[in-house]
């Protein structure tokens, strides 16, 4: 599975402007977007998911072109088949664990099909959530919430899993465990993962292509574009971005 991303986007609010200019190519199972906060990592992920639209460029996952400004291609979010794990998981607070997991299978104003219910039961079993199927997200621990969010994002067989700082909401003792779980999930579903992290522990755990963002140059030592920290798969990712203030 190859991922090719080459996008530009300018965001402005008031007198502040932010330029994102990133391009990378990855063939491994894991791609890690790393760099200081505010450098545009989340924005990149949101562009891949289709939540934000780049000003120009091209996004290609596997054989599918999701965005191409030259050919006026912009696949809507709902058709991109992308699993997205939000930083705080964004579990639907009004729905039970089972309804959260089955959300992507249910159609508006129609009950979940028998096949769908089986699929949900299978995912709950895999993620060890069977006992809390009827609980609301607010009653779950951090680790359980992450499992629900993962199960929910995998229900429609996405072609790639995007994780926005997946472990930042967890306490340290839990992170190691959830890293191992994520690896197991990746292997089981055989799905490429793009994740954001600035933790060396994550970079060690998920051997893969590193896309290094520069940004607030003074804060970050490796601020030159195209810096390669680790690249287990041996491909050379490049990324550059800059923050401009007027």
């Amino acid at each position: 599975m190859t991922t090719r991303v080459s996008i530009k986007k300018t965001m402005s609010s008031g007198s502040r402007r932010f330029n994102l200019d990133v391009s990378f190519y990855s063939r491994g199972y894991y791609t890690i977007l790393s760099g200081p906060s505010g450098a545009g990592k989340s924005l990149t992920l949101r562009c891949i998911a289709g939540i934000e639209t780049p000003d120009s460029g091209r996004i290609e996952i596997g054989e599918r072109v999701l965005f191409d400004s030259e050919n006026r291609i912009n696949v809507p979010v709902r058709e991109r088949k992308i699993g997205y794990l939000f930083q705080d998981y964004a579990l639907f607070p009004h729905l039970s664990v089972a309804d959260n997991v089955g959300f992507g299978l249910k159609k508006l104003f129609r009950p979940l099909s028998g096949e769908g219910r089986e699929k949900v039961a299978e995912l709950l079993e895999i993620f060890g959530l069977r006992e809390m199927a009827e609980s609301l997200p607010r009653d779950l621990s951090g680790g359980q919430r992450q499992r629900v969010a993962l199960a929910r994002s995998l229900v429609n067989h996405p072609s790639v899993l995007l994780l926005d700082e997946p472990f930042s909401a967890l306490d340290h003792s839990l992170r190691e465990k959830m890293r191992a779980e994520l690896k197991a999930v990746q292997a089981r579903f055989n799905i490429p993962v793009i994740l954001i992290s600035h933790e060396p522990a994550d970079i060690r755990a998920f051997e893969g292509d590193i896309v290094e963002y520069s940004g607030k140059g003074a804060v970050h030592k490796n601020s030159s574009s195209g810096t390669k920290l680790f690249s287990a798969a041996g491909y050379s990712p490049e990324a550059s971005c800059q923050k401009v203030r007027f």
Partner: protein
Amino acid sequence: MFNAVELSPLLLTLKVAGLATCTALVAGTALAYALSSYAFPGRDWLDAFLTLPIVLPPTVLGYYIIVVVGRNGFIGKWLDHYLGISLMFTWQGAVIAASIVSLPMVIKSARAAFEGVSPDFENAARTLGQSEASVFFRVTLPLAWRGILAGAMLAFARAMGEFGATLMVAGDLPGRTQTLSLAIYDAVQAGHDTLSMQLVIFTSVICMVMLVSSGKLLRAEY
């Protein structure tokens, strides 16, 4: 407590305020969703226009309503000519007046409720393959309905108390268009002290219940 003659303004008020609240609820929710979701040109002006009934004197609203649906109004003339209907001096006219004054109550509450729903929830639903209609009915509305309903309660209380515009549009015909607030005015004028006190207390109690329920609904659930 009330005899048949005294009961009629009460039932009429419940009917008028109930229908006005339903109208304001549907129109207000749709308008609030548009105002909170889309940045279209003139949004601030539309918002101000829809808020006008809160600040304008009821007589001004009554005047505008007459201009629109009165016998010579541009909708009123059409209704009269093609359907033979006139809304002036009817309880339906009172519903129109009450709907207009209670609309901003729903819009204000519903807009705050919609803006309180984190876009992450809606985006999560989109990444799960859901259409915009599905996102609205399965995520946005269920997360905002308490705020919207709280607004509907305020709208009902406001519609019940409507006086000025109703008087100008529907008049004060006992048994036909005389609502509670008009009946209270008449009772006080005629020196019916017991009746006016009963109606005043009844109105106050209902409005109090509405405000308390509205406040309870607004307390965070999740």
